[in-house]
């Protein structure tokens, strides 16, 4: 049995699944690292919601241009063929269904694709949503990248989200450290597993698996 995936391996797995020439938004945090594993000849073009297509890599602070950041406010580069636009145009692009794929992190995903990734529901938390809800309703494919279990072992792929939703029935794939799930009209299909058997997976999740 292969071991469970380290973060970089997971990013590499997602990167390999992104179609050639796709327009892609990589969410704040872990999904940002997917960019490192895209092949230079893939023609994949990265969108950042703060107004750019053709975004390049995250660069160290000493190379930073303060006018050029990703959605996580990290300094990035500009690739040849890039284009800048303002926020209303950027979100029109997202909401209008023009992005092929977006990849986001999540607290929970439900079997029918509901996404919860902006708020734990804790009463003292300061809520912040950013562009997550816009991506959830807008991208043609919404992929989630996360660990399958919390630190206490609770599954994050669930029959119904208990955290406040980001979007309903929007997620089509869930990439985790131990398995990749395709959320299909027929149900949740396990595409591959890493360091866990399908039987154990079925036992530890409350979601029926195909």
């Amino acid at each position, binding site marked *: 049995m292969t071991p469970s995936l380290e973060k970089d391996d997971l990013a590499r797995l997602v990167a390999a699944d992104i179609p050639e020439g796709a327009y892609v938004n990589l969410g704040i945090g872990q999904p940002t690292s997917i960019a490192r594993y895209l092949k230079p000849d893939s023609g994949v073009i990265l*969108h950042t919601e703060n107004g750019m297509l053709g975004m390049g890599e995250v660069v160290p602070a000493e190379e930073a241009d303060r006018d050029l950041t990703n959605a996580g406010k990290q300094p990035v580069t500009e690739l*040849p063929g890039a*284009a*800048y*636009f303002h926020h209303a145009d950027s979100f029109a692009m997202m*909401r*209008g269904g*023009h992005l092929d794929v977006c990849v986001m992190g999540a607290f929970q995903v439900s079997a029918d694709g509901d996404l919860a990734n902006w708020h734990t529901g804790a009463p003292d938390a300061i809520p912040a949503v950013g562009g997550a809800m816009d991506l959830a309703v807008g991208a043609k494919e919404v992929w989630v990248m996360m660990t399958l279990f919390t630190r206490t072992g609770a599954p994050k792929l669930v029959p119904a989200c208990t955290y406040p939703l980001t979007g309903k029935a929007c997620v089509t794939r869930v990439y985790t450290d131990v398995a990749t799930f395709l959320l299909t009209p027929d149900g949740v299909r396990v595409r591959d597993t890493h360091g866990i058997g399908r039987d154990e997976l079925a036992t530890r999740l409350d979601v029926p698996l195909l």
Partner: protein
Amino acid sequence: MKTQVTDALTAVKEIADGDTVLVGGFGMAGMPVELIDALIEHGAGDLTIVSNNAGNGDTGLAALIAAGRVRKMVCSFPRQADSWHFDGMYRAGKIELELVPQGNLAERMRAAGAGIGAFYCPTGVGTPIAEGRETRIIDGREYVLEYPIHGDVALIRAHVADRLGNLVYRKTARNFGPVMATAAKLTIAQVSRIAEIGELDPENIVTPSIYVNRLVEVPL
């Protein structure tokens, strides 16, 4: 997905009978004449055409209308000194007309491209354009509810593209092109020149490549 560079006839080959085609241009400025010629040669008919005017003279959109391929025009200003092909078809009852104020035409296509379900617009309140339509008072002002106009295909003309499909336009020939590019499932742009990637300044791109599926180079 990757923008294809092709010839005009190949570019328009999937346009089907009954399609809604958004056609750029304000009069002749920005009209993709060679793409329309290819559409005429291709042969699709029963089309709904969304364009500001209903053809000028005997070329471009006017030729498409003259060829009997247009079932319905959605436009703001059909009647012009040189719109004789449309005028004749209209008076003969052979073409349907949906008259839309120019700004609503633009904004309804913008809504289609931007994922907006509908919007409340003040234009036309109290006029025949608003008769029988849903209205609403917001902050003391009356608005008409307007719905998006989606295209199956957009045929537009820009000035220069790069190979990725980023577009820049020239002067007032920009007009409807950038909006139509966002509102169609398939956008085909006729350009005077295709530049190398990196040649166009990223600050000056008007239509980002994500909105452009096919490029046809037609040197001036």
